[in-house]
Structure formats: C-alpha cells, structure tokens
C-alpha cells in the first residue's frame, strides 16, 4: 500500500503539485489555450459536448484532449500504485444530477473552481464574486455534512465498472488526435472562432493533461475539498495546494504578460472590453458558483477530482462526469450560460434540486458487511 509517509501525501507534496498545475495552466494559455482558461474542467467538458454535437454553440466546440488525458493520467497512477479499485453503488443517479447542476452553475459564472483560481491569477476580479459564491456553496454543503449527509456507501464492483470511463476517455483522446469529420453537419464539430478555436498543440495538451492527472491522483488535489476541509475541520492541507496553484499561475502570468487586472479590461486609449470569457453581472457570478460549490461539496469533490476518481475505478464519479457533460449541453441548448436570459431560472431551479438532495440525504449508513 501507499503509506501515509508517501511524499505525495505530505504538505510539501501538495504544494509542489499546486505549483506545477499553476505553471502548466499558464503555459497552456501561452501555447494557445483561451485566456485565463489554461485549464478549466467545466469549460473543456463543455467544449467536448460541443465537439460531439450535444450542443450547437458554434464558438465552444472542440474536443479538448486535456480532460481525457486527466482521466488517463490518473488511471496510470492508480494502476502503478495499485490503487485502481472498481467501485460503485453510492447513489449514482443523484451523482449524475449533482454533476448536471454543478455544470449549470459553473457555466453561469463561466468557469469551474480551477478556472475561478486561474481567472483570479490573471487579474479578472469577477473571479472574486465567483470564489465567494463557491465558498458560500461549500459552506452550505458543510452544514449538511455536519448533520450526517451521505450519498451512501460504494461497494467493490466488477472490473468493467471501473474500466468503463478510462476506455471512454481513451476513445475521446483518439478522436481528439485524429479529429475525424463523420459527414456534413455531423460530428466532430470544431469552432472556427471564439474560445473553441483557441488551443495549445494537441501533443502538448495530452502530455500536460497526463502529468496533471498523474500528480493529482497521487496527491488527491481538490479545489472544493480545500475550502470544505478548512471550514469543516480547520485543515489547510488541500488549501495549501490551491494557494500554490494561484501563486504559480500569477507569477507565470506576469512573466508571460497575461496579467490584466480589473472587472473589465481597459485599453491604452481608455476603451473597455470584457475580461476573456467573463461577464460582470455580479449576482449571477456569485449565485452560479453557490450552486456549483454546493453540488461539488455534496458529491465529495471538485470537477477535476471527479475526473481523477473516475480514472481510478470510481463508477459513481464517472456518473458525475457524465452529468457534467449533459449539464453543459442543457446549459447551452436552453440559454442558461453566463448572463443569458434563462440563467436566473437555472440558478433557482438548480438550487431547489440540490438543496432537496441535501435535505433528504440520509445519515451515514450502517455497515452491511
């Protein structure tokens, strides 16, 4: 087994990995990924949904190789350290719904917790509202956890249960590499303008994604666990990794001249433009991330963590990831992204759904075996 003295499990280990992820994210942006979006699990999953034709928002369709590479990096790490363990049974359908709601909330803010940190490190002050919402959502989740909220136990399962998601991700990775077009008006789609058209070279994205997946599986890096453990147990272990990520991305952004502070960007002639892939409707930035933060907290981890867990055999985390993919399609098809017309309704309905899951969550179940 991997003992508690493992370097990856140490404070030094999680800080080093946070620094590495921050550097990798800023570098991926420098190499072509969209601004303040070197890595974003929500945005990239949304782009994949677009590439597959699950939504038709033309500017955000690209089969991002980073997400499958995350999963496969974690898969390799889990196999190498004998931690691959097929398991399921902890309310899979509720995890699917939580994944959907988390994605809908994140896309109203326009970013997952990872991108919230990267937007902050790039000087987009709208991220402050998003992070405040995220922490508030996690805080509400902590209240549920304190009174015994649980989605129930997972149980060891058959090998294919654990292998399903890594195989799906391997297929996605191959599609990302070869990018076949199956016909006119058929997948795979690829944006010709907008964020979906901006991408680092595929090989670099894959290598970077595999490294992040491997390191994050070893350290259990989690941007939601960071704030949850701080509020719930005064434990700053995971938070120290997230702070390291922001610090590294900030320094790299300064070096690459990618830091541009403000709620909007102001050019030398005084004209203003929005921060990249961002809006300034503060209450939506805040409440969107309340919805996302609460959903992630009840599901046990941030979107990145769910992808990594799906790589180490967790079939329930895989359901959460599929929920995110579905949520991305719903968000765009029903005009609920950013400050679009139906975003406020999405927040209200999403919160009702997720609070219901929280309220009806049973106490930690007794062991059966």
């Amino acid at each position: 087994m991997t003992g508690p003295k493992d370097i990856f499990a140490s404070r030094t280990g999680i800080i080093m990995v946070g620094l590495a992820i921050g550097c990798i994210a800023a570098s991926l942006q420098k190499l072509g990924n969209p601004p303040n979006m070197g890595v974003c699990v929500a945005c990239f999953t949304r782009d994949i949904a677009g590439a597959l034709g699950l939504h038709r928002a033309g500017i955000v369709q690209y089969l991002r190789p980073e997400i499958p590479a995350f999963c496969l990096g974690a898969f390799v790490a889990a196999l190498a350290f004998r931690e691959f363990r097929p398991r399921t049974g902890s309310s899979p359908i509720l995890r699917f719904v939580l994944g959907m709601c988390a994605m809908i909330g994140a896309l109203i803010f326009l970013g997952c917790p990872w991108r919230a940190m990267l937007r902050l490190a790039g000087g987009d002050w709208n991220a402050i509202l998003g992070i405040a919402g995220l922490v508030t959502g996690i805080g509400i989740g902590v209240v549920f956890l304190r009174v015994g909220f649980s989605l129930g136990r997972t149980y060891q399962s058959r090998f294919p249960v654990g292998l399903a998601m890594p195989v799906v991700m391997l297929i996605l990775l191959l599609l990302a590499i070869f990018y076949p077009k199956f016909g006119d008006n058929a997948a795979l789609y690829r944006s010709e303008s907008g964020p979906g058209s901006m991408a680092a070279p595929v090989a670099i994205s894959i290598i970077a994604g595999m490294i992040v997946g491997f390191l994050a599986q070893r350290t259990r890096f989690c941007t939601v666990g960071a704030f949850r453990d701080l509020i719930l147990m005064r434990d700053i272990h995971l938070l120290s990794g997230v702070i390291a990520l922001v610090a590294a991305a900030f320094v790299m952004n300064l070096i690459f001249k990618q830091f541009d502070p403000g709620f909007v960007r102001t050019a030398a002639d005084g004209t203003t433009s929005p921060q990249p892939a961002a809006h300034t409707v503060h209450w939506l930035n805040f409440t969107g991330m309340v919805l996302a933060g609460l959903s992630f907290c009840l599901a046990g981890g941030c979107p990145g963590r769910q992808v990594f867990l799906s790589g180490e055999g967790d079939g329930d985390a895989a359901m959460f990831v599929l929920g995110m993919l579905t949520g991305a399609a719903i968000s765009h098809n029903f005009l609920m992204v950013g400050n679009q017309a139906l975003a406020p309704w999405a927040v209200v309905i999403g919160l009702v759904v997720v609070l219901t899951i929280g309220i009806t969550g049973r106490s930690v179940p007794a062991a059966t075996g």
Partner: protein
Amino acid sequence: MSVSETVDARGLSCPQPALLTRQALKRTSGKEVTVLVDTATQVQNCTRTAEQLGWQAVCEENEGTFRLRLRR
C-alpha cells in the same frame, strides 16, 4: 478493560471518513479507536486528521480493507 470504539467508514466519500474519525476521537474517553476504510486516500485523510488531534496511527491491510488503529 477499556472498550475500543470502531468507526466503519468503508465506501464513504470525502470528507465523511475523516469527519467520522474526528468526531469519534473528540467523543471518546478511551485511548484507542479503530477506523475501517477501503482506499489509500482515506487512510491518508484519516491519519492526517488523527495526527492533527495528537493521536498516532498504525495501519494494516487485509483483503482490501484498511484497519487504522489510532492511539493517544
């Protein structure tokens, strides 16, 4: 003879194993608590929680179940 409390946290998501461990350690008047988990992640989380409260952990694995013996 002191009664040793056992926390069965097998199959539970973050942060429940660490939280249940913390609650048990704060509640108990004894000197030993046993925690059962089934992933290396939860071994690390529960060990960290115990050590923060001044307890020491010894782990042994048997057929996919990790038995953490916590002593103060």
